[in-house]
């Protein structure tokens, strides 16, 4: 069917609206009586003029152009695109959660506070940390919070020489970006031939300037940093704190806890591990967990319990301050709490077990098609090297685009940077064996096609709502807003 390419601004007609307000007797003040004449807007913003059916159709039809978990497989590595249970949507719409104002007195939302308290406790238990704050809005924001805590800790101890943070070369971009935002210099430690942090190199880098090491374990290659205990020992002996990027927590829940591995602070991605929907990019939640030694610096307010009453504790003298308005993305927190209630201790553990099982199963099959640079097993994800496509004149990008024609979302591509032509594949535990087998079939088909008609693949996809898009042009002739 012909696609309607129109923007919402190109629809509707002058004078149309899609709402009705109550019919009321509102005092008939003139604007000039209320606000200074010169501050009255003369030209109204050019917003759409549509009625309800036009708006519903526009966005319904737009939605159909998206691939999503509800449509099919989405093995986007590092993003843990697991199924987002529908009951979580139901509970997030309960009026007694939706209609709460952040400044109504605490006594009038004890239930909401208890939910948050429950979530803090559960997250702390899962990660082996002592305290949790639910305020950060996303993973990167959790990193910012965590790194600010580390800075506060060192500063508080007068340990002010520490101006550098070490991140592995395989780290996610938010890690170095966050460290820099917190005013740290960033030093990169290389990976060894096993795809792990080069322990020796790391040890040599450690000195009195190193404030922290940011790691994720398993790392972004999906490999468990098996030197972790030694890393933590060296770090701690050096007065360096260990930060855990919880993006990969889906690999280890119920099996091992970052806190027990010696991490001092971590962020969770509730929108990954705890199944809250990604919503095209957010909102998520980057809750942060800390060991007791960092608790004195937690952002305010912190949800606490005092006998029977829950309350927001602002009395944290050494707090890093506030990191976000109010108390975190509450609508995300509700969903995460529902997920934990549903899964329970055993379910949480199963999730990680099956996530790892799925990844290894797929790894094993994909390894017959692509080089997988490191190791023979993996945790919850693995990274393949698409360089072999070069012999057909193709790249990982072409391969990814070809997948689109099969209704599958491609893996994360070109990350981590240490693998050439990287394809980072994370199936998650909610995908069935058939889905994985089907994916392998597709990979085979595409590889056959790559051999036979590589030129065709260079122009994939063919059957998506649009064909391959010109990013160069987009960046050259920047057009970032509509004008009539």
């Amino acid at each position, binding site marked *: 069917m012909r696609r309607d390419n129109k923007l919402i601004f190109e629809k509707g007609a002058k004078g149309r609206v899609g709402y009705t307000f109550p019919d*009321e007797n509102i005092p008939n003040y003139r604007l000039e009586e209320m606000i200074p004449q010169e501050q009255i807007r003369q030209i109204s913003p050019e917003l759409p003029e549509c009625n309800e059916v036009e708006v519903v159709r526009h966005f319904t039809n737009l939605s159909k152009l*998206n691939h999503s978990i509800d449509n099919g497989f989405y093995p986007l590595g590092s993003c843990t695109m697991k199924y987002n249970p529908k009951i979580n949507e139901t509970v997030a719409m309960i009026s007694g959660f939706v209609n709460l104002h*952040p400044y109504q007195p605490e006594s009038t939302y004890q239930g909401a506070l208890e939910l948050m308290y429950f979530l803090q406790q559960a997250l702390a238990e899962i990660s082996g940390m002592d305290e949790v704050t639910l305020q950060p809005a996303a993973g990167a924001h959790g990193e910012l919070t965590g790194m600010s805590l580390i800075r506060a800790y060192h500063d508080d101890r007068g340990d002010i020489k520490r101006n550098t943070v070490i991140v592995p070369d395989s780290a996610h971009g938010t890690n170095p970006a966050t460290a820099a935002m917190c005013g740290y210099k960033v030093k990169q430690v290389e990976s060894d031939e096993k795809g792990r942090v080069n322990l020796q190199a790391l040890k040599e880098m450690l000195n009195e300037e190193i404030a922290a090491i940011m790691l994720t374990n398993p790392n972004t290659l999906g490999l468990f940093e098996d030197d972790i205990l030694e890393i933590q020992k060296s770090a701690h002996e050096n007065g360096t704190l260990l930060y855990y990027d919880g993006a990969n927590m889906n690999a280890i829940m119920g099996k091992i806890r970052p806190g027990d591995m010696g991490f001092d602070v971590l962020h969770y991605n509730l929108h990954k591990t705890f199944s809250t929907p990604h919503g095209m990019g957010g909102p998520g939640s980057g809750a942060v967990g800390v060991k007791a030694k960092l608790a004195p610096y937690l952002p305010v307010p912190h949800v606490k319990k005092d006998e029977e009453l829950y309350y927001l504790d602002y009395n944290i003298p050494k707090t890093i301050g506030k990191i976000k308005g109010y108390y975190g993305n509450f609508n995300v927190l509700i969903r995460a709490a529902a997920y934990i209630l549903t899964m*329970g201790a055993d379910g949480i553990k199963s999730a990680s077990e099956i996530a790892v099982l799925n990844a290894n199963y797929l790894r094993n099959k994909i390894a017959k098609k692509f080089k997988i640079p490191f190791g023979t097993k993996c945790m919850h994800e693995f990274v393949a090297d698409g360089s072999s496509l070069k012999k057909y004149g193709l790249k990982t990008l072409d391969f990814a*685009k070809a997948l689109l024609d099969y209704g599958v979302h491609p893996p994360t591509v070109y990350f981590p940077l240490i693998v050439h032509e990287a394809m980072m594949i994370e199936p998650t535990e909610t995908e069935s064996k058939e889905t994985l087998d089907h994916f392998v079939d597709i990979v085979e088909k595409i590889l056959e096609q790559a051999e036979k008609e590589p030129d065709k693949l260079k122009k994939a996809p063919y059957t998506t709502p649009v064909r391959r898009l*010109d990013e160069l042009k987009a960046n050259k002739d920047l057009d970032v807003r509509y004008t009539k």
Partner: protein
Amino acid sequence: MPKRYIPHTDGEIKEMLSSIGAKSIEELFQELPAEKRVSQLNLNKGLSETDVLRKMKEWSQRNADLEDYSVFLGGGIYKHLIPQSIQHIVERGEFLTAYTPYQAEVSQGSLQMFYEFQTMICEITGMDVANSSMYDGGTAAAEAMLMSFNIKKKDHYLVAESIHPEYLKIIQTYAKGPEIEIETVQYSKETGMIDLEDLKNKIKDNTAGFLMGYTNFFGIIEDVKKVREVTKEILLTVSCNPVTLGVLKAPGDYDVDIVTGEAQPFGGSLYLGGMTLGIFATKKKFMRKMPGRVIGKTTDLDGNPGYVMVLQTREQHIRRDKATSNICSNHAHNALVATIYLSLLGKAGLREVAIQSLKKAHFLAERIDRMDRYDLAFTGPFFNEFTIKSQNDPKYIRDEMIKEKVMGPLPLLEVTAKDEHEKFSLVAVTEANRMEEIAYFASRLEGLL
């Protein structure tokens, strides 16, 4: 194992293990150090759907559901009328369960919507470019501060004391790492507006910029024009409640450099302040210094229009420690809500929301001002929120009101923690407040001891 989410049968697990060549799932975890392994998490047992619903309902019932209250609380989060159709659209799986549009060809729904959102934000703020969302008004303001620092390479930054107190605290947190000195600019105790003299005096050689509210936390409409006049050498950021821009002159008209704001009022639910939407707009020349994701229009192989993420070289996944910000996930779904809201209300609707809120607020303010025991705290012009000074204790007012199923006003002291605000309350009014509610509120207020 909660079988409804994890499909694997025992048979399949066996088959998969044998395909891998592993004897057990446990074997896959062999590399984890044995001495640190956890045996059993101390968590609840998994619950059925019914039991989850029951538990959640129980929790929700221990909250005062503001659906049943007249709400006069504001302070950055407002109860507006929300067209019902929004919820039905945004819950569609294709919007809810997609992620960042990394693969543009199967994300045109998200991408076109973001492009529309950016356009709306540009239109409303009067700026050249906008990104596709930030976490909230506070972090957007903090990012504006960092951006000013990065552009100007100067480490002194001014913030109006009359800004949302939480925003100020967030800015201070964000300023610690890069060691930016945050200094506040006083407001006039009489008008509630920025003290222009103080502002002038505080601008130093190493001042990167100034951040102000428009309106400010007391509800007062600042005189941006005058502020701009004295801040010509530095970067001026205006943090706004974008609803007000349905009637107030766009910040862009004052030639401000950056506009940030909290767009929860654009169709967002209250959610205890947990459904926020940061907006961020700037001038074209600063575009490459802007944080966050930006969507641009392009064409596909067949020449058809399409949308992609642009300017990614500013972002963390490419630029790493040199990125303009560390932001990755943003508040995309809340941007969808706002985009649909603004599509439904449209040109006329946004204006009507602003005007109704304005008129109702002024009606109430007038009534209160005439009461013996209450006065308006400031003389400056206000929009839909205003500060009153009472003889009695604001907390007492608030608690008495709750008994009448009225939530608000806000005892200012609770948020500003300033003793001078001990008798101040912040009253917010929107189009959602019915005239009879307003009358009732006024008469109850008058009746209080």
